[in-house]
């Protein structure tokens, strides 16, 4: 059995009558970057706090480095936590803030000076050591929070929406910096965000959370193109999501009857029965508008609207029964050969059809 760096098993936490976390189980390899992604109130912070030892779970187990850590006090867990609002100590200057964990570890003063200077250099803020947190900008405070966490070299770092309060530009810069620090230092990072793009960009794996439980864990790619639950399919990115009935089950493919009487071919991943009611999902960017009727799946409709979103263009097509389908294409010059009101044939490969059985994720 491989030893996980961090493992939780069926962790449950309630606040009075509110079940904040139902039964969360995650495993993390050493050096992995795992992101918890989910809507507000889905229990991300609660799980992070349980791992940090800041709230005692009602039941379930937490292992760190293969050792049971359910009730280990936070200061013995060898992990670092970056809080959403940074939690810099307002009564200490930047130097003292960063030196705090080292002082708690009884390091000699000379070494503390050296280490603080080292991390301040890493986050490129060596000139602010004498200032107080409120004298820094949001982005600078965020970097100091990171530095305070890196300085004592914890082997696991937990980050709770560390970039939530920053503007888009700064967020992107810091995303890259965090990613770089993660790679250079080889730390295990458990990250929380509700920005999907951020999760996609940064993570080795993403854990989608919904209503206190874990919906699906997988690489960004898997989650995006092969979601296994309705919630993940709907929550991540955009999707065309339809009801369908299974008509035929082949060796490696399934034929379904979808809206507007269309026949839809998909790959067989999970066993389904003939006649079963299922849903299927197609990402808009895998749907082509080039009138190619010979693909695995093809359906006719009327183009209702075209919206150019900079790099991409969205086509809204109405099928014969009024159902709407979306196709996303890269914007290119002269792509307006098709006009609104025109009939077009949408088409996509059977590998792009994701079948979602009703019991999963409901």
């Amino acid at each position, binding site marked *: 059995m491989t030893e996980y760096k961090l493992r939780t098993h069926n962790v449950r936490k309630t606040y009075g009558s509110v079940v904040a976390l139902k039964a969360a189980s995650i495993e993390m390899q050493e050096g992995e970057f795992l992101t918890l992604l989910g809507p507000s109130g889905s229990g991300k912070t609660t799980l992070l*706090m349980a791992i*940090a*030892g*800041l709230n*005692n779970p009602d039941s379930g187990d937490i292992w760190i480095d293969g*050792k*049971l*850590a*359910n*009730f*280990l*006090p*936070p*200061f*013995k*867990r060898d*992990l*670092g*936590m970056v*809080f959403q*609002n940074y*939690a810099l*100590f*307002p*009564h200490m200057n930047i130097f003292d803030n960063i030196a*705090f*964990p080292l002082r*708690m*570890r009884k390091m000699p003063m000379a070494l503390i000076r050296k280490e603080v200077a080292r991390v301040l250099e890493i986050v490129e803020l060596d000139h602010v050591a004498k200032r*107080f947190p*409120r004298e820094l900008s*949001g982005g600078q405070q965020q970097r100091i929070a990171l530095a*305070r966490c890196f300085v*004592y070299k914890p082997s696991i770092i937990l980050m709770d929406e560390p970039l939530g309060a920053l503007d888009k530009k700064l967020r992107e810069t810091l995303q890259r910096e965090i990613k770089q620090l993660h790679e250079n230092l080889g730390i295990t990072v458990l990250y929380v965000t509700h920005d999907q793009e951020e999760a996609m960009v940064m993570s080795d794996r993403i854990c989608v959370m919904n209503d206190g439980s874990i919906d699906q864990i997988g690489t960004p790619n898997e989650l995006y193109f092969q979601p296994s639950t309705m919630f993940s399919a709907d929550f991540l990115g955009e999707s065309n999501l339809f009801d369908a009935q299974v008509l035929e089950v082949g060796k490696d493919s399934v034929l379904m009857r979808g809206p507007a009487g269309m026949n839809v071919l998909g790959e067989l991943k999970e066993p389904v029965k003939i006649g079963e009611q299922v849903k299927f999902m197609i990402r808009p960017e895998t749907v082509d508008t080039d009138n190619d009727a010979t693909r695995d799946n093809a359906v006719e409709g009327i183009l209702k609207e075209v919206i150019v979103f900079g790099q991409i263009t969205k086509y809204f097509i109405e099928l014969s029964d009024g159902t709407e389908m979306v196709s996303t294409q890269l914007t290119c010059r002269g792509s307006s050969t098709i006009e609104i009101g025109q009939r077009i044939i949408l088409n996509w490969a059977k590998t792009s059809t994701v079948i979602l059985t009703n019991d999963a994720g409901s």
Partner: protein
Amino acid sequence: MSSKSEQLPSVTYTSIVRPRNWSRFLSISPAILFLGFFFIYPVVLLLGLSFVDSSGTLTLEHYTRLYEKAVYAKVLLITLKIAGWTTIFSILAGYPIAYLLSTVKSSTRNSLVIWVLMPFWTSFLVRTFAWIVLLGRHGALNELLLALGIVDAPVRLIFNFTGVMIGMVHALMPLCILTMMSVMENIDRNLVSAASTLGARGGQAFWRVYFPLSAPGVAAGGMLVFITALGFFITPALLGGARDTMIVQVIIFQIHEVLNWGFAGAIAMLLLASVLVIFFFYDQLLGLSTLSGESTHEHKKGVIGRIGRRLGGGVINILGYLCEQGGILIDKLTPQRTDRARRQGSRTTLWITAMTVIAFLCIPALFVIPVSFTEDGFLGWPPKGFSLQWYEQVLNSPAWAAAASRSFVVAISSALLGMSIGVPAAFFLARRQFFGKAALFAFLVSPIIMPNIIIAVALFYLYAKLGLVGTNIGLILGHTILAIPYVVITVMAILKNYDHRLDQAAWTLGANKWQTLTRITLPLLSAGLIAAFMFAFVISFDELTIALFVTGGEVTTLPKQMWDDALMRVSPALAAVATLLLAFMSCIIFSTEYVRRRGLRK
């Protein structure tokens, strides 16, 4: 970002209404004139008396006497000692409660705060008499101690330093708790969590992070208690022995018994000087702005500030270290099991401590209620039987009825007057930027800082010349002096959270300045204004010091009537009055709270 959006409207605001010069100070001038004439002027007169002798020539004889007679230095020392210990005990006992209150759910907090405030609602005098009965040689406490076999003979708990401490800490601790709580509520709980993930044990995290952040609250609370304690005279007079005489008692003696105004003025000067010296040191250490419960983390540059910070830092290091070692020791003795939660011993201890202190705060009030129904002829414990005779006696007595109605009229009038002077002043201070704003604010709230006895004696002196002694008007004007600072502080606090853009929106929609004020601003602020009014009302309703002097023994208010009654004979009728007052005050406070909540929901 946020600072921009906050500043922008106020900048536009001042540029939109640029009043002509003469009318600029129209809203603030009543406050300045009123306090100038009824507060500053008489106080200056009184202090001025200390520099002239009986024939009216300039002299320093009062001060040389003050300096030469060792007894006055001794009284000052005793006063400082009593105030100092009261402060220390109030902080030590109050801190755990404030901490608990700031960490529990808000519903739990609201119900606990009611109990903490209990001493405020029980009349000052009744509380003191309750202590006399409870702590006396054959009092309830001694009986209990004897019955439990803890002591063999009754302990002396009263008419000495212990008695004074119990009475004063009981009276002043709620002030300390509320001040500390207002700072603690704003401490981000994540900071302690962050400290513990960064490697600090519970004790270290507390001493190095939480405590320094709560220190401004401790200092402000301690400061308020200390200053208020300096002006006490009822508690030491009734609960203390001869050796616990405080400085205000000496002032009263000089005026009532010896009629030596000049010397009384000199002692008042001494008292005032001590207050100012204390304020100076406080300002050097922490800055006066922390008194309003704001925690500034700005570091004072002065020498005193630096020394204080060094000392504070050293103490915190030592305490943090000790707690850490204690934690390690406990770990060694009972190794931490990672599969089982450690019993939350510290939290339980906190609750027990807090509950004990709350019990201490509530006992006199709870004692008063049963005693008011006694059949006995004196205030004793336990009460015998059940009767309503004392209520009948009080309700049928013309003296009590007159006192109650006068108190009511005076309280309503002075609250109204205080509002009409204080509200415009608060608007002025909150909305305008001008040179000397801090000084003006300090001036308007200075009646809180001035020991009440000085105001009372000074007013007595002024009224004697104006013929206002013994009149309702005189009483109303006196209470208005005390009401103004509370109105200004309360209204400024609500204005701080008021969104000026609403006014601007009204203007752009075509409302003029007056319409905006009456249709938008005041309705939105109504909950806060009502709270300010109630505050002013309660202050006047429970006020004794000024009433004692300016009524001239002819007319009485409720507290004064109780005082006179108590000096003659301590009867259960007093307990009945106190119970009625308690019920009345509870109604006021609950309705204020109700209005405030409804205001929040809006």
